[in-house]
C-alpha cells in the first residue's frame, strides 16, 4: 500500500451561505488513479481550485506529501509537484503548441533577462532542454506533428491533449485533470483513457474529475463521490457502484454514456 | 471654525457636480458593464452646449441644462454606434481602445472647432445667503437641487418604468435578460445615452460654477468622475453620488494644503488608494475589477 501523497482534512469553501465544498476528507495514494465524481454542482471544480490555491479555503486543510499547503499561492503549486488542467481548457491560444508546453517547463528552468540577452551557455542549455523535452512530451501525447501550429487552431480533442502535455511539463507528482474527456466522442475518450493509463504507468499520481461513469469506473483505483459539497462515498469502483447514497444522488440525473 | 464649515459647504456643492458625473459613469461602467474612456469629453461637450446656449442663444439656465443633456445624449448614441455596437460582448480591451480613439478625436477636434482658449461663461445666480457665518451661494443650492431632481428622476425611471426594469435585468445578466425577451442592444443604447446625458448636465454646471469652459477640460473631469465612482463603488448609483460629494469635500480640504496645480492629483491619489485598499469602493459589489 503506497503512501498518501495528497490529502484533505475537513476541507470547506463557503460562499456566503452556500457551502460549495463541505468538510471533505479525501486521501489519494501515490501512484493511483483517483476519480472524483458527482452530479452537476457537486463542487468538484471548486474542490480542485481549493487544492491548487486558486480560491481561498474557508476551513480545513490540504496536505501534500505530508506538508500542509493550505492557502498556498497558486504560482507555487507547480513548484511543489502538483499541476492541473482546466474544465474550460485554458491554453495559451496564440502561442504555438510547442511554446505552450515550453511554458510548462518554467519552474524547471532558470534563465532570466540577462541570460536571454547574452545567450550564455546556461541559456542555451535551458532552451535545448525545453525544446527537446517539449517535443518528447508532444510525442508522448501524440501531438508531435502539430508542434508549430498555433494552439488556437487545434481541434477540441487535441487541445485537451495539449493541456495535459503542458501540465506534464512541470514534472508533477500529482496531476489533476478536470473533465479531460468532456465533449469527446467514444474513440477520443478511449484515447484519453489510454493516455491517462500511460501517465499513471510512469508512476505519477492522477486525480481526475469526470462525468463519464464508464470511463471513471474502468480507469480509477479509488473514487470519491461528492454531492452538493459533501463527500458521500469513497472507495473502489465496485464499492461506489453499489453504494445506496451514490445511487440515490444520481437518481434523476442522466447517467454518463 | 467657520473657515472649515465654509470649506465643507463649498466641498459639498462642488461634490454635487462630481456626483452627477459619477452617477453617469456608474451607469455606463457599473450598471451596463461597458468600459468607457470618453466620459470626460462628453462632459466637455455638454459644457460647451450649455455655454453656447447661455452666451449666443442668450437663453436661461434651464434651456442651457437641456441643451447639455441633449447634446450629450446624442453624443452617447454616436459613441454606442462607433464603440460598442459591433462588439456587444466585449472584450473590455476592445471597448477601451475604441473609446480611447473617440476620446482623442473629440478632444483634439474640440480644440480645433471650439478653439483652444478658455471661454468665459456668464454668471447665472450671483446671490448668496449667509447662515451662521457661512456663505452659501445660490448657484450652489441650485446645483444640489439639480442633482436631487435628476437622481430622483433616475431612481423613478429604474424602479417604475418597464425600460428601467429591463435595464436592471440586463445589468445583472445579459443572457438571461435576452432570453426573457429584453432587447439588450436597445437597453445598452438607452443606458449609455442616459449616462452620457447626466454627464452633459454636469458639464453645464461645471461651466457655470467655474465660469469657464475649455476644450481640454475633459481630462480632469473624466478623472474626477472615475475617482468618484470608484470611491463610492462602481456598481452602486447612490454610492457614486456619495463618492462625488466626498471627492468634492476632499478636494476642497486638499487645496488648503496643496496649490491648485496639484488639484487633480488629489482625485488621482484617492483613486489609487481606493483601488489598493478596497477596490469595491464604499457601496459597491465585490470583485468587479480584479483578475
Amino acid at each position: 500500500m503506497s503512501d498518501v501523497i495528497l490529502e484533505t482534512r475537513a476541507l470547506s469553501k463557503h460562499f456566503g451561505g452556500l457551502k460549495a465544498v463541505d468538510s471533505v476528507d479525501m486521501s489519494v495514494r501515490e501512484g493511483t488513479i483517483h476519480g472524483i465524481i458527482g452530479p452537476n454542482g457537486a463542487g468538484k471544480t471548486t474542490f480542485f481550485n481549493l487544492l491548487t490555491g486558486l480560491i481561498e479555503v474557508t476551513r480545513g486543510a490540504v496536505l501534500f506529501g505530508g506538508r500542509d499547503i493550505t492557502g498556498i499561492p497558486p504560482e507555487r503549486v507547480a513548484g511543489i509537484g502538483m499541476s492541473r488542467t482546466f474544465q474550460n481548457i485554458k491554453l495559451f491560444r496564440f502561442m504555438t503548441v510547442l511554446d505552450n508546453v515550453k511554458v510548462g517547463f518554467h519552474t524547471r528552468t532558470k534563465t532570466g533577462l540577462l541570460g536571454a540577452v547574452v545567450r550564455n551557455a546556461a541559456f542555451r542549455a535551458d532552451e535545448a532542454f525545453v525544446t527537446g523535452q517539449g517535443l518528447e512530451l508532444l510525442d508522448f501525447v501524440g501531438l508531435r506533428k502539430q508542434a508549430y501550429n498555433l494552439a488556437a487552431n487545434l481541434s477540441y480533442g487535441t487541445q485537451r491533449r495539449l493541456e495535459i502535455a503542458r501540465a506534464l511539463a512541470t514534472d508533477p507528482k500529482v496531476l489533476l485533470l478536470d473533465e479531460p474527456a468532456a465533449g469527446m466522442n467514444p474513440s477520443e475518450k478511449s484515447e484519453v483513457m489510454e493516455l491517462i493509463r500511460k501517465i499513471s504507468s510512469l508512476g505519477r499520481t492522477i486525480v481526475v474529475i469526470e462525468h463519464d461513469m464508464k470511463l471513471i469506473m474502468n480507469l480509477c483505483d479509488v473514487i470519491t463521490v461528492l454531492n452538493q459539497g459533501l463527500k458521500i462515498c469513497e472507495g473502489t469502483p465496485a464499492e461506489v457502484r453499489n453504494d445506496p447514497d451514490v445511487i440515490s444522488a444520481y437518481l434523476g440525473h442522466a447517467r454518463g454514456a | 471654525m467657520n473657515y472649515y464649515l465654509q470649506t465643507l459647504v463649498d466641498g459639498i456643492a462642488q461634490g454635487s457636480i462630481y456626483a452627477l458625473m459619477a452617477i453617469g459613469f456608474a451607469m455606463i461602467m457599473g450598471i451596463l458593464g461597458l468600459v468607457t474612456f470618453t466620459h470626460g469629453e462628453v462632459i466637455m461637450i455638454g459644457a460647451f452646449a450649455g455655454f453656447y446656449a447661455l452666451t449666443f442663444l442668450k437663453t436661461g439656465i434651464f434651456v442651457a441644462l437641456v441643451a447639455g443633456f441633449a447634446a450629450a445624449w446624442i453624443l452617447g448614441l454616436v459613441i454606442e454606434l462607433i464603440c460598442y455596437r459591433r462588439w456587444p460582448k466585449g472584450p473590455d480591451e476592445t471597448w477601451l481602445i475604441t473609446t480611447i480613439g473617440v476620446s482623442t478625436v473629440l478632444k483634439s477636434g474640440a480644440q480645433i472647432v471650439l478653439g483652444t482658449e478658455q471661454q468665459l461663461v456668464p454668471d447665472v445666480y450671483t446671490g448668496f445667503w449667509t447662515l451662521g457665518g457661512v456663505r452659501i451661494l445660490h448657484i450652489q443650492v441650485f446645483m444640489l437641487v439639480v442633482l436631487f431632481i435628476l437622481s430622483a428622476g433616475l431612481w423613478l425611471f429604474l424602479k417604475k418604468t418597464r425600460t428601467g426594469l429591463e435595464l436592471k435585468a440586463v445589468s445583472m445578466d445579459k443572457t438571461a435578460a435576452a432570453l426573457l425577451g429584453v432587447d439588450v442592444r436597445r437597453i445598452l443604447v438607452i443606458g449609455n445615452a442616459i449616462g452620457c446625458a447626466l454627464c452633459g448636465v454636469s458639464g453645464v454646471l461645471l461651466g457655470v460654477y467655474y465660469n469657464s469652459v475649455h476644450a481640454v477640460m475633459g481630462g480632469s473631469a473624466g478623472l474626477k468622475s472615475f475617482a468618484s465612482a470608484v470611491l463610492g463603488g462602481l456598481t452602486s448609483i447612490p454610492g457614486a453620488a456619495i463618492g462625488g460629494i466626498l471627492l468634492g469635500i476632499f478636494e476642497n480640504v486638499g487645496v488648503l494644503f496643496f496649490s491648485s496645480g496639484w488639484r487633480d492629483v488629489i482625485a488621482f491619489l484617492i483613486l489609487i488608494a481606493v483601488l489598493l485598499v478596497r477596490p469595491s469602493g464604499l457601496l459597491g459589489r465585490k470583485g468587479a475589477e480584479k483578475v
Partner: protein
Amino acid sequence: MKTLVRMVQRHGTLSMLCAAGVLLAVPFLIRGNDYLLRIAINILLYSVLATSLNMINGYSGQFNIGQAGFYCIGAYTAAILATRYGVGFWLALPASGLIAALSSVLLGIPTARLRGIFLAICTLGFSEIVRLTILNWIEFTRGPMGIPGIPFPTFFGYEISSNFGFYFLILTIAAVTLFVCHRVLNSRIGRAWIAIREDELAAKSMGIPTTRYKIYNLAFGTFWAGAAGCFYAYLSSYVSADSFTLDEGFAILCMVLVGGPGSLIGPLVGAFFLVVLPEMFRFLAEYRLVIFGLAILVTMHVRPQGIAGGGVFAAIAPDSEEPAGKGAAS
C-alpha cells in the same frame, strides 16, 4: 500583402540584410536634405518608443497609456546628468533607461493587480504626475524653463552634431533595442510574459509568479522609452516637460495599435506611417491627433490586429510549418 509577408517570413535573414542595407544607405541618399533626415530620425526614434510600449501592451496584456511619462524621465535624467554632472552620452543612455525602469517599479507595484481601464487610468495619472512634478520641482528641473545646453554626443572623439550623425546614432539604438527585445521574447521570460497575456490564471498554474513578472515587463518596456528620452535630449539640446504631454503618450499608443501590437514589426510600421503621413499632409498638421484617433477607430473596425500585428491580434493563422524565423515574435 500576404505573399509578401510569407516571403519575408521564409527568408528572414535575407530580409533583415536588405532592410539593414536600405537603412544604412538612406542617409547618404538624402544627405543634403536636413528636412528629410529629420523625418528619418523621427521615424527611428518613434520606432524605439513604439517598440518599448509594444513590449508592455503587446506582450504581457497590461494596458499602459502613460509611456510619455517614462520618455520624459529618460530625457530629464539625461539632461541633468549631462548639464549638471558632465556625464557623457554613452553613460547617460543606459542610466536614463535604468532610471525610467526603476520609476516604473514605483508605478508597477501598487497597480500590479489592476486590469484594463483601471490600470490604464493609473498609468495615465502617473504620466501626468511625472510631468507636474517636473514642472513644479524648480530647484531640480528648472520647472517650466526646461534644461538647455545639452552638449553634442561624442563617439571616439568625433562629435555628433549633424542630422547625418544623429541618424546613425538612433539607428544604432533602434537596432540594439530590437535585437535585445527579439532575444528576450524568444526566451523563458518572453514566453512567460506571453503566457500571462494569454491567460494569467493558467500562467500562474504553470508556476509563473505573474505579479512579479508583470512588474519586470513594465520595467523592461519603460527602459527603452527612457533610452529614447536620452536620445531626444541630446538631439534637441534642450528638454522641457511640455514635450511630454499625454498627447505624446496617445500618439505612441496609436502607433502600436495601428501598426500592430504583439509583433516586433508592428510598431515599426506604426511609427513609419504615423510619422510620415502627418508630414506628407502638412496642411492637416493641426488635425494630427484627430487623425490618430480616427486611425485607431478605423483599425479596430477594419483590421483589429493592426497592419502587422501578431499573437492574439492576428487573424491570419500561420500554416503548420517549421518556425519561420522570429519564433514567438512572428
